[in-house]
């Protein structure tokens, strides 16, 4: 399978299975268009092309295309499916998302967790539950050495003493268990005072700071209980945090909705503020919210990604470098193919723990009774739904199997698939369209940077 497209005057061709990426000139691109996805030349199209293009050019281009094919760099076969059983056999739990607080001091209008409460009551995780979660992770992680714990909410800073207690407990168990913990925290920044920043800087591998971009955009969504926006309060705290971390291992992340389909401006605003690690993502919200990205918004959102990609490449070249998370693509390195086929690992390698200690496939499933998988106190309950997560990979999802982006996207988000289609194997189409555009942009940026 190949994916051939044109962006800002560059013809790009991705050979899906090998990961090879080529830039074609217009002549070669036209010749390539005469090939089917099976790698065979369509004689009809080809003879038509011969009437339109000089024969010598056609022959040269054809020779080059054929040599790529013979080297396995174009129309290459997918050799991975047979390895799947070997890669899924030893799946163990390696990451937990701890819902430290099902409560929040903001009322973001797009929040999937319903003001931090999810589907339950307002509650805080106790240290006892947190310690049990660490024990559970150690016991269920087999031979894996690196374990991840993400402090999430609601808003985790509302229960920060427990965060500290859990970190201390996990560290105290590193030696006897032979494990190494990596901590991350995702916060709305409001309570990020010096003490907390110091603790986070000392103990956390990554910190994710939520801010949506321009003041008016942020404040229209990220509001306090009294309806006031939080931009002016959080910006200095976020800047201090990043400064004190030496500009390493953090992300500022925002969400865009159909109210700001010019979200590129928000990305650039964050870059202008001095942030270098930026993530701004499409909201996943229901139609009732009025904020959801709709079919009719796709062309505008895609055009905005392309516009941003161009500015991004220029800025990175002229010394105003920054990273936009969704344009980052490690072509030479990156994760192994086993990971690319399976994605986030929700329900298998990755689980969410509620304040009460209940286990769910991931934070977005928390509180949905049919997805309750057990508890940190009693272990897995044997809920058969877990099997579905085990079998979740790009070959099992019909849309993904045929999709050129599968080894970069890894099959999308099960929670979105459930939310929109009540089937974790049925992909969320709008998400797919935006994801594919981001990957196209990322490849285009690589092409610019390799000039």
């Amino acid at each position: 399978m190949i994916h051939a497209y044109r962006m800002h005057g560059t013809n790009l061709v991705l050979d899906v299975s090998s990961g090879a990426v080529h830039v074609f000139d217009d002549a070669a691109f036209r010749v390539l268009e005469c090939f089917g996805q099976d790698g065979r030349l369509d004689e009809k199209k080809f003879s038509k092309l011969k009437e339109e293009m000089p024969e010598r050019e056609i022959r040269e281009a054809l020779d080059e295309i054929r040599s790529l094919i013979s080297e396995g760099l174009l129309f290459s076969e997918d050799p991975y499916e047979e390895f799947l059983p070997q890669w899924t056999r030893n799946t163990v739990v390696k990451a937990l998302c701890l819902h430290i607080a099902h409560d929040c001091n903001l009322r973001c209008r797009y929040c999937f967790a319903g003001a931090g409460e999810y589907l339950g009551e307002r509650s805080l995780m106790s240290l006892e539950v947190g310690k049990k979660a660490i024990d559970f992770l150690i016991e269920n992680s087999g031979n894996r050495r690196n374990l991840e714990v993400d402090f999430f909410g609601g808003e985790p800073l509302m229960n920060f003493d427990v965060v500290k207690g859990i970190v201390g407990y996990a560290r105290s168990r590193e030696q006897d268990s032979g494990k190494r913990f990596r901590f991350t925290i995702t916060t709305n920044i409001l309570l990020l005072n010096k003490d907390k920043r110091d603790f986070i800087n000392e103990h956390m591998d990554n910190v994710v700071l939520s801010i949506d971009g321009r003041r008016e955009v942020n404040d229209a969504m990220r509001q306090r209980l009294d309806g006031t926006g939080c931009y002016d309060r959080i910006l200095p705290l976020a800047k201090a945090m990043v400064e004190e971390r030496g500009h390493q291992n953090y992300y500022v992340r925002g969400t865009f909705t159909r109210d700001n389909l010019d979200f590129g401006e928000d990305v650039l605003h964050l870059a202008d503020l001095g942030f270098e690690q930026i993530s701004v993502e499409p909201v996943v919200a229901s139609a009732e919210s009025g904020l959801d990205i709709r079919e009719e918004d796709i062309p505008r959102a895609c055009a905005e990604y392309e516009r941003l990609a161009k500015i991004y490449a220029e800025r990175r070249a002229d010394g105003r470098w920054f990273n936009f998370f969704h344009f980052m693509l490690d072509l030479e390195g990156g994760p192994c193919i086993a990971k690319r086929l399976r994605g986030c690992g929700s329900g298998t390698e990755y689980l969410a723990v509620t304040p009460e200690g209940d286990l769910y496939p991931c934070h977005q499933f928390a509180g949905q009774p049919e997805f309750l998988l057990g508890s940190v106190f009693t272990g897995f309950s044997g809920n058969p739904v877990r099997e579905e997560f085990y079998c979740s990979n790009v070959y099992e999802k019909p849309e993904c199997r045929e999709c050129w982006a599968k080894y970069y996207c890894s099959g999308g988000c099960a929670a979105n698939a459930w939310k929109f289609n009540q089937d974790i194997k049925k992909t969320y189409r709008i998400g797919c369209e935006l994801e594919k555009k981001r990957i196209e942009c990322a490849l285009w940026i690589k092409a610019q940077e390799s000039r």
Partner: protein
Amino acid sequence: MKHIKTINGKTLNRDVKKAGCGECQTSCQSACKTSCTVANQKCEKK
């Protein structure tokens, strides 16, 4: 080549036999999280 420039060679199928050690980070891809596409993650072995 005159008409085609290859900017990335065969990279996905390089280490099929060694793949799947599982020490790498998990990666949520949704809008609410430390989210990211899988493709930009690091391999723990390198």
